[in-house]
């Protein structure tokens, strides 16, 4: 094994399982790469080197005795700094929680531990998971490893940048309006948010009661399938978590798209889209067609209402969660965040109730429009080319507000709809920055969305490319 950091999560596990690489070697390779390059990328908040090496040594000892911890044994991971471990600081990317030590553990982290994943520490993120760019006033902006002045996408900025930079094989992010899929798209990796309530949110910083999702960012759809199987399923600590049984998502990765029908909505997702994004998206549809899929253009008038209601729900719920701190210490938030929260307090209660009341009917309407005769929906993950950090910095220039908010236009609707949605790399724009393809399926259709993503990745090499970090 020449470069262990080049391995995907499933490849790293296979190398460990077969005795081709020790867990300690996998962790040390990650630590060396982080030490060499994260000074430029700024993806890490806290590196738990000693604890990770101890965990790796324990796994190597167990493996020598013929014991394998689980399907992620030996895999180095790090996580967005909003997953709680009792007694360990979880900053949530904020000054307000710079010294916050939770008293409980995240169920998702405990499930990853049980599967053998090695937790190396915590990652940079948008403050309280509330921007789509990767700006962070308190811990420094996260930089895109493909081109450092460009944004990483957010809010799981360190997760996307770190996986892309090959600092670790996979990471947990969270997704309330696109915060997994945006950094996945912009950094050229694969990410999935599941069906609403598919993964337990116990022990995770809340942002929106209705639309928060836990999920992974990794190199491949197969990596995501394995991690999703580990972290999904009902959790007594999260009464909202879905009781549906968790299928073997990897078993669905057949590569066979014959008979699959893909719907491409004609509304919303292409409004003001850059030409290079549309061309990249159309090229990705050709890949799916070559595998046997049928592609149809469909009309989805429901998207106009969905796009409006999702903004109401997320703003009101975030403002509610942050109300006490906003009363007592509003100046401790970055301006772009406090500005967003202030807006939430001015939304009439009747609007919020209407937005929630319409959610069920609009989900059913969207399914009638897009999924009655088709298996999945495909869209570009972003309408625009990847912008720079400077172009989207609201604190430096409030005129950047519109561009900043437009980043998440194509991801937000699927949070309101609660549908499982994957973003996977589908090429590079004319400035050499990654572009993403977004695939959504029916509720609890994670396996279907991942199957399409995996089939695409069998015929393309975008997900295997790595940035040249000099």
């Amino acid at each position: 094994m020449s470069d262990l950091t080049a391995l995907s999560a499933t490849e790293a596990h296979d190398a460990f399982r077969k005795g081709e690489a020790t867990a300690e070697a996998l962790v040390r390779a990650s630590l060396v790469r982080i030490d060499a390059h994260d000074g430029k990328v700024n993806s890490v908040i806290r590196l738990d080197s000693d604890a990770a090496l101890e965990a790796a040594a324990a796994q190597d000892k167990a493996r020598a005795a013929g014991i394998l911890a689980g399907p992620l044994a030996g895999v180095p991971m790090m996580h967005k700094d909003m997953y709680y471990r009792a007694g360990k600081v979880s900053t949530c990317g904020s000054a307000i929680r710079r010294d916050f030590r939770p008293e409980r553990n995240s169920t998702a982290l405990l499930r990853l531990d049980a599967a053998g994943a090695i937790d190396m520490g915590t990652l940079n993120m948008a403050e309280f998971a509330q921007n789509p760019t990767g700006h962070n006033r308190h811990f420094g902006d996260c930089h895109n490893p493909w081109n450092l002045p460009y944004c990483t996408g957010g809010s799981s900025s360190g997760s996307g940048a770190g996986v892309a930079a090959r600092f670790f094989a996979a990471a947990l992010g969270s997704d309330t309006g696109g915060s997994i899929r945006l950094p996945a798209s912009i950094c050229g990796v694969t990410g999935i948010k599941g069906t609403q309530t598919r993964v337990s949110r116990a022990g995770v910083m809340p942002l929106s009661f209705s639309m928060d999702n836990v999920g992974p960012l990794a190199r491949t759809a197969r990596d995501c399938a394995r991690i999703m199987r580990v972290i999904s399923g009902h959790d007594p600590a999260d009464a909202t978590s879905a009781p549906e049984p968790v299928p073997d998502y990897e078993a669905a990765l057949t590569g066979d798209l014959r008979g699959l029908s893909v719907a491409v909505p004609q509304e919303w997702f292409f409004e003001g889209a850059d030409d290079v994004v549309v061309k990249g998206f159309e090229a990705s549809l050709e890949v799916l067609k070559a595998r046997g899929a049928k592609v149809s253009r469909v009309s989805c008038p429901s998207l106009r209402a969905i796009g409006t209601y999702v903004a109401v729900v997320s703003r009101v719920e975030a403002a509610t969660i942050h109300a006490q701190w906003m009363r007592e210490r509003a100046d401790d938030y970055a301006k772009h965040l406090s500005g967003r929260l202030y807006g939430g307090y001015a939304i009439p209660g009747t609007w919020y109730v209407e937005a929630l009341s319409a959610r069920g009917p609009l989900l059913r309407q969207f399914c009638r429009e897009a999924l009655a005769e088709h298996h999945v929906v495909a869209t570009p993950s972003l309408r625009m080319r990847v912008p720079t950090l400077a172009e989207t910095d609201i604190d430096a220039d409030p005129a950047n507000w519109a561009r900043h908010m437009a980043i998440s236009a194509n991801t937000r609707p699927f949070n309101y709809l609660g549908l499982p949605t994957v973003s996977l790399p589908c090429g590079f724009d004319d400035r050499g920055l990654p572009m993403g393809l977004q695939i959504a399926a029916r509720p609890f259709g994670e396996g279907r969305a991942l199957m399409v993503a995996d089939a695409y990745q069998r015929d393309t090499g975008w997900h295997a490319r790595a940035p040249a970090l000099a």
Partner: protein
Amino acid sequence: AAAARALEDFPALIREFEALRGTIPTFEAALRAEKEPGT
């Protein structure tokens, strides 16, 4: 009948919201009703 900047959005949001009039009994029930077959 930064905060200030954020609220400049509100006339647009009001217009969008009002434009929905006439264009539209739970979300959890709808999720189950529209499930992927076999799940």
